[in-house]
């Protein structure tokens, strides 16, 4: 598991490089799982590249470039209340029946099955890095660009499945 504080930003401010090592070929589905993802500000997308530490927002979305997929956050757009209105409170006790704060950081996934298979087939070291390119989804298309500090999250990890769906089960295991 890679956590946000471990990641390198280098000279390309805003682009994150997460060290993630994986070589096991046995999976039917692979997801990158992002936890603690902030959605309080503007909207943004995060484009994922495997084993391509030079990727940017202009890199082709091509499996040969390590493109794994992308996710989009539909942003709350900032705080329109008084002071404290958008502060997420700590976990509430069980007898506090109010629902979780709307801006509680979320979990999202990017399914990278095909891209991971390609990386494992073409790299002896397997998966070594995941590059995350955050781009602001601004109202005006011409304003969209890599934006540092928009993408805040706790960690990213790789989750693989031996069976993705029932259709992947061997015939003997089906009902």
């Amino acid at each position, binding site marked *: 598991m890679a956590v946000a504080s471990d990641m390198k930003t280098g000279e390309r401010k805003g682009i994150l490089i997460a060290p993630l090592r994986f070589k096991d070929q046995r999976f039917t589905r692979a997801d990158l799982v992002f936890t603690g993802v902030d959605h309080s500000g503007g909207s943004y997308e995060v484009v994922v590249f495997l084993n391509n530490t030079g990727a940017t927002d202009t890199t082709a979305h091509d499996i040969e470039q390590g493109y794994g997929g992308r996710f989009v956050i539909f942003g709350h757009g900032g705080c329109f209340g008084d002071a404290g209105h958008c502060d997420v409170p700590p976990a509430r006790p069980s007898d506090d029946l109010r629902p979780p704060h*709307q801006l509680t950081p979320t979990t999202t996934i990017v399914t990278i099955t095909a891209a991971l298979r390609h990386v494992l087939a073409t790299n002896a070291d397997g998966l070594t890095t995941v590059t995350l390119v955050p781009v602001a989804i601004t109202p005006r298309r011409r304003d969209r660009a890599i934006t540092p500090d928009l993408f805040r999250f706790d960690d990213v990890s790789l989750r693989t499945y031996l069976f993705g769906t029932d259709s992947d089960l061997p015939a003997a295991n089906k009902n």
Partner: protein
Amino acid sequence: MSAAQLTSFRQAVTASMGVSDNRGYSAWAGIHGLPGQFCQHGTPLFLPWHRAYLYLFEKSLQDLVDGVTLPWWDWTSADSHAEGIPTSYTAATADNPLQSGSVAISASDIEQLEESAPGVMSDGDNPTTVRDPGPPTDLPQASTIDSILDAPTFADFTTRLENVHNDVHGWVGGSMSIIPIAAYDPVFWAHHAMIDRLWYLWQMRQPNVLPPAAMLNAALAPFPLTVSQTLDISQLGYEYAVAAIN
């Protein structure tokens, strides 16, 4: 959607936009973002909350035009991948209320949005919604949706579908690109009807897979419905075609 259905829907939206109290279009749009800010995103309530929202908004339209229904925008269709937003929503005619909506929020909120999100609405004292769509071929692919419809659990399905939902909001751009005023754009409802339809299609494929039991009795504020009351659309009195009819 037939010509008669489109005419009826436009009549209903026009009438709703003319109602200035809490039964009207602006009041409904303001539940999602500003000023109400009740919407659920990035939580397990995303699908049930928006189903309740669509259901009650449609009921409000039916109070104005008997039998009117909300159309869905199938952004995976060949037409959408050729033309983008349906022409019924873009036609620049005086009698088409689906082009844009008035952004009925406070002056201070307008000022804050203009500062933080330039281009999110038209300029002037009475702003309206705007769009800045991307290339039609960038809209979600049918193959992506087919894969998501195979999701084995509610959590997997809603997480992946919400990502596609977010992507379409960003693709439309303009007012649809951020939560505070997205619902003031009439295309918001067609987009969310598509999301609701996909949830229905997934439910048809996975009839025995329910949301987690712990959330079934959760209230969907500010609506008088719980999660479990949204699960069966036949109980809500509506249905979706399984295949699109152009």
